[in-house]
C-alpha cells in the first residue's frame, strides 16, 4: 500500500484529504507543520508528500527545500497544495523540486488524479533506478569475468622468451579488448625439435578466449597430445607433421562446435639443422627474412580450421640459415586501419623488417610496432596484435 504524508496546519484540510484518499486505498500519515513533516519523513518510508505552503513553525517552501536536500527524502515526490494561487508561487514551488502544484480549494477528482500520476511516475522511476543498479552490478561482474579470462589467456603466452639453444625469440602481444582470440607459443618437442604456433580465433570476448584456451590445451607438448604420436619402437614417439596437426585441430574444432573458427600456422623447427616444416590454415603468411634482407613468404597451407577437411592442407618446408629471421603475426597488424581506413598491410611490414634487420630481434619488433603506432595516428587497435619472432643460428645466441 502506498504511503502518503498530508502536511497542512488546517485540521479540516487534513481531514478532507484523508477521507478522499483513504477511499482509494492509500496509507495516510499527517503532520500539522513543516517541522513535524520533516520528522515523519525521517522515520517513515513515504511514497508521496502533499504539502501546504502557509503554515506556522516552518512553511512549505522551506520544508520542501530541506526534504530535497536530504538523501532519505530527496526522491519522494512533493505536491504543493496551497490557496496561494499566483503563478509566481507555483513557479517557486516547482523550482524547489516539487513534482506538482494544486491550488486550494481543490477538486477531489483532480487531487486523486494528480496523486495517482505522481505515484506512478515515482514507481516507474524507482524500478528504473533498481534495474539500472542491477545492470551496473551485472556489468561489473562481467568485466571482472572478462579480466579473469584475459588473465588466463595471458598466462598461456610465454612469460619470458623461450630458452632454446641456437634460437633467439622476441614477441609482442597487445589484446584489443579485455580478452581476445590470439595466442602463440613455442614448445620443446624433443632434443632437436621445437614447435612454434600462432592462432587467431574469430571474434572477441569470453567465447573467443575460451576457445583459445582450449586450443592451447590441445597443443600442449606433454601427456596425451596431438604434437607427438606414440610409436611402438624407439624412441617410442613420432613428431606429428604440421599438416597432421592441422587436420587433427580441424577434426576437434569443427565450426559448428563453438560457432567459432580460427586461423593458425603450426611449424616444427629442427634447431640443429634449421629445417622447418609448417602448414598454414588461412593465417597471414609468416615472413622469412633472410640474413641478406630478402623476404620469403611461407604460403603452403589450406583453409581455416573448422571446415571439416573440405580442402586439404598443403605441407611446406624450408631451411633456416644462421642469421635468418622468422616473423609470425596476426592480422591485427596487417589489417590495422588508420583514420583514413587504410590498412597498414604487409608491404609496410616488409619495409620495416628489412630496414631494421641489423638491429636486435627484439628491437626489430619494437620498431615494427612503433611504425604501426605512427601509422595509426592515435586510432585504437581494432583487433588483438600478436607478433612472434625467431632468429636462427649461433649469432642469435650472442644477442646480436
Amino acid at each position, binding site marked *: 500500500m502506498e504511503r502518503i504524508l498530508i502536511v497542512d*496546519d*488546517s*485540521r*479540516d*484540510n487534513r*481531514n*478532507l484529504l484523508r*477521507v*478522499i484518499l483513504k*477511499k482509494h486505498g492509500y496509507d495516510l500519515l499527517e503532520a500539522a507543520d513543516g517541522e513535524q513533516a520533516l520528522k515523519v519523513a525521517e522515520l517513515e518510508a513515504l511514497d508521496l508528500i502533499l504539502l*501546504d505552503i*502557509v503554515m506556522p513553525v516552518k512553511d512549505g517552501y522551506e520544508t520542501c527545500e530541506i526534504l530535497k536536500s536530504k538523501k532519505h527524502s530527496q526522491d519522494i515526490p512533493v505536491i504543493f497544495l*496551497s*490557496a*496561494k494561487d499566483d503563478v509566481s508561487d507555483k513557479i517557486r514551488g516547482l523550482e524547489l523540486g516539487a513534482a506538482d502544484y494544486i491550488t*486550494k*480549494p*481543490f477538486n*477531489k477528482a483532480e487531487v486523486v488524479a494528480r496523486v495517482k500520476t505522481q505515484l506512478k511516475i515515482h514507481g516507474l522511476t524507482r524500478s528504473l533506478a533498481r534495474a539500472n543498479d542491477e545492470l551496473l552490478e551485472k556489468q561489473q561482474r562481467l568485466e571482472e569475468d572478462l579480466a579473469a579470462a584475459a588473465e588466463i589467456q595471458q598466462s598461456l603466452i610465454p612469460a619470458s622468451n623461450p630458452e632454446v639453444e641456437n634460437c633467439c625469440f622476441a614477441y609482442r602481444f597487445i589484446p584489443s579488448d579485455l580478452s581476445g582470440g590470439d595466442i602463440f607459443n613455442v614448445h620443446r618437442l624433443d632434443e632437436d625439435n621445437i614447435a612454434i604456433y600462432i592462432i587467431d580465433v574469430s571474434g572477441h570476448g569470453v567465447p573467443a578466449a575460451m576457445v583459445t584456451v582450449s586450443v592451447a590445451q590441445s597443443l600442449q607438448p606433454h601427456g596425451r597430445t596431438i604434437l607427438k604420436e606414440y610409436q611402438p619402437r624407439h624412441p617410442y614417439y613420432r613428431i606429428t607433421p604440421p599438416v597432421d596437426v592441422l587436420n587433427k585441430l580441424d577434426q576437434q574444432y569443427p565450426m559448428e562446435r563453438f560457432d567459432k573458427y580460427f586461423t593458425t600456422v603450426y611449424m616444427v623447427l629442427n634447431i640443429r639443422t634449421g629445417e622447418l616444416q609448417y602448414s598454414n590454415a588461412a593465417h597471414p603468411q609468416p615472413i622469412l627474412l633472410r640474413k641478406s634482407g630478402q623476404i620469403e613468404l611461407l604460403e603452403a597451407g589450406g583453409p581455416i580450421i573448422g571446415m571439416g577437411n573440405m580442402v586439404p592442407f598443403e605441407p611446406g618446408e624450408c631451411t633456416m640459415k644462421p642469421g635468418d629471421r622468422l616473423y609470425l603475426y596476426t592480422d591485427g597488424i596487417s589489417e590495422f586501419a588508420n583514420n583514413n581506413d587504410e590498412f597498414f598491410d604487409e608491404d609496410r611490414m616488409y619495409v620495416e623488417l628489412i630496414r631494421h634487420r641489423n638491429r636486435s630481434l627484439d628491437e626489430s619488433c619494437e620498431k615494427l610496432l612503433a611504425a604501426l603506432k605512427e601509422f595509426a595516428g592515435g586510432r585504437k587497435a581494432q583487433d588483438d596484435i600478436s607478433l612472434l619472432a625467431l632468429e636462427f643460428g649461433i649469432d642469435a645466441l650472442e644477442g646480436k
Partner: protein
Amino acid sequence: MSSTTVYIDIDLKELIPMFLESRQEDIVALRQALADADYTTLKTIGHTLKGVGGGYGFDFITDIGSDIELAAKEADDVHVEKLINSMEYSLKNLEIIYEE
C-alpha cells in the same frame, strides 16, 4: 430571511460537524483579531478559509475567506466586519444536502 444551500459529498458527512465547529471558532478569532487590529491574523484566517471551504463544497466560505484576506491587506475594517457578519449569517441559515 433566506437560507444558503450547499451540496456536500456523502463521504464527507461525518466531517461536517467538526468543520462547522471550526468555522465558529474562526468567527470568534476573526472578531478578536479585528478588535485588536491584528491584520496578520485576519489574513491568515482568511487564507485558510479560502483554502478549506470549496474543498468541502462550501464555496461561499472560500469566497468570503478570499475577500477577508484582501480586505485585511488593505486594513479595511468595515469591509472585514461585513464579511464576518455575512459568513456568520450564512452558517446560521444553512441547508445542507448530501449527495451520493
